[in-house]
């Protein structure tokens, strides 16, 4: 098998929100007849001609404002969003860990959701049954695993999803702003697991607003804005430049302050 890698060449992603907006309902259609305003093509460019190469062993952080395209970029890397222009190629077993509002069966128990998620991440049923106790104990959800997940808090979703995703032994781990939601004890556990993962020379791409976590996990950071790469380089240098830009303050902030630029 070839070496793990992620290669993006001139990748563009456009969302056509015209199809989703109200112009496409009967109500909206009738309203438009009355107003007779010409309908514009409603296109959002989430990524514009973005090129990026990630090699085995690299741990890449993504920073940028909300809406800079970080999540979209991660989904392109995962193969979930096919680029609307350019080319994307990811070699390796990908394990995505994205938004938590979706992708759960709300009326089913935590156990059942673990099984389903593990299956969708490519685990075989016997493998899942063998790993269930370990996943359950890592999540520390205890008796809550017997309850339907609609009763869960955000932090509990994160525990469940993180426990499953990291147990599938991924080669490429894509994390989208997830570590923040767990409580202190869990974050500590998650850190340990992240370090184990990082020691195995696999690829990590991690988007976060927590500059602390970026500094801890990532040896390289990409600063994005408006779907483009602004700067790409060693984490420390990029974080400093980003802080300077985002906070409009000198870069000599205490290193353990977390910047939440929103």
């Amino acid at each position, binding site marked *: 098998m070839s070496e793990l890698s992620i290669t993006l060449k001139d990748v563009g992603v456009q969302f056509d929100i015209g199809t*989703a907006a109200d112009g496409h309902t009967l109500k909206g259609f009738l309203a438009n007849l009355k107003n007779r305003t010409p309908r514009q093509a409603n296109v959002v460019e989430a990524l514009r001609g973005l090129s990026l190469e990630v090699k085995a062993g690299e741990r890449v952080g993504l920073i940028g404002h909300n809406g800079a395209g970080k999540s979209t970029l991660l989904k392109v890397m995962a193969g*979930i969003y096919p680029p609307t222009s350019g080319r994307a190629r990811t070699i390796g077993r990908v394990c995505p860990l994205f938004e938590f509002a*979706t*992708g759960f*069966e709300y009326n089913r128990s935590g156990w059942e959701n673990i099984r389903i998620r593990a*299956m969708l991440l490519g685990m075989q*049923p016997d493998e899942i049954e063998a790993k269930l106790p370990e996943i359950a104990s890592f999540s520390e959800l205890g008796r809550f695993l017997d309850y339907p997940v609609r009763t869960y808090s955000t932090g509990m979703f994160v525990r469940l999803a993180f426990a499953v995703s990291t147990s599938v032994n991924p080669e490429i781990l894509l994390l989208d702003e997830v570590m923040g939601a767990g409580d202190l004890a869990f974050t500590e556990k998650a850190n340990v697991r992240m370090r184990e993962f990082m020691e195995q020379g696999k690829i990590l791409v991690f988007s976060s607003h927590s500059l602390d976590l970026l500094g801890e996990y990532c040896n390289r950071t990409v600063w994005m804005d408006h779907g483009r790469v602004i700067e790409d380089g060693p984490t420390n240098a990029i974080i400093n430049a980003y802080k300077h830009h985002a906070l409009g303050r000198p870069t000599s902030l205490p290193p353990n302050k977390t910047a939440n630029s929103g």
Partner: protein
Amino acid sequence: MTPLRKLRRDQITALKNWRVWWHLGMADVRNRFAKSFVGPAWILLNLAMWVGGMGIIYGTLFQRPLDTYLPYLTIGFVCWGFLSQTIIDGGNAFVFAEGYIKQFTYPKQIYVLRVIVNASVPFAIGVVIFFIVTLAMGQRIGMGMLWALPGLALVLIVAYLHAFIMAYASARFRDLPHGMTALLQVLMFVTPIFFTVDTLKKSGLDFVYKYNPLYYLIELMRYPLTELKPAPVEVYVTAVLYMLIAALVALFIANRLDRRIVYIL
């Protein structure tokens, strides 16, 4: 990679990972009857009530002897249920799986196959009930019924194609599942399920079944199971032709929409 090559690769990956869609589909069945006292036995009760109620009324209305009419009605209704459920649920296959499609990298086809698994459970129970009704009515059971097996294979493939087309098209046109639900309600009373083709011929309404592909799909299994011999050649020819057309439509629509699904959900 061209869209068609990607589709072929995805389809093969999806079929190989049968455990995933099998599990999802069976979990859907269990979930549908969660917290219900009677549970999946509702499938059985529901069918028994239909066949009992409709069978006696319509049998009398169409002046058909119940011993042949009840088995005929049961298997026709069961096949119809499978075909219509896969069409309607197919329309929601991608819409309901949005959370999965946007988070996991499996080919989308597993969510279509999940629909087929889900609908197969009442279908299988229904076929068992058909045999019970057939025995109870003192009708013959014989080797000729095995002709229903090639029919079943065709029905499964066509149902998959239906669900596939509906899944893609409904993600783009959200009115489609509503429209199909309305259309299928009408079609159920127009397709020969409660009455026979002879009744239609007598009234000069031949066109009602002749141009109705669902009639041929039902006949693929109903004819061998009630007549103990292969269905007329034109049934097979029409069904195979229809399958090929459905496959072409499915390819065409997936070729156009496959890359866009995740964006329009």
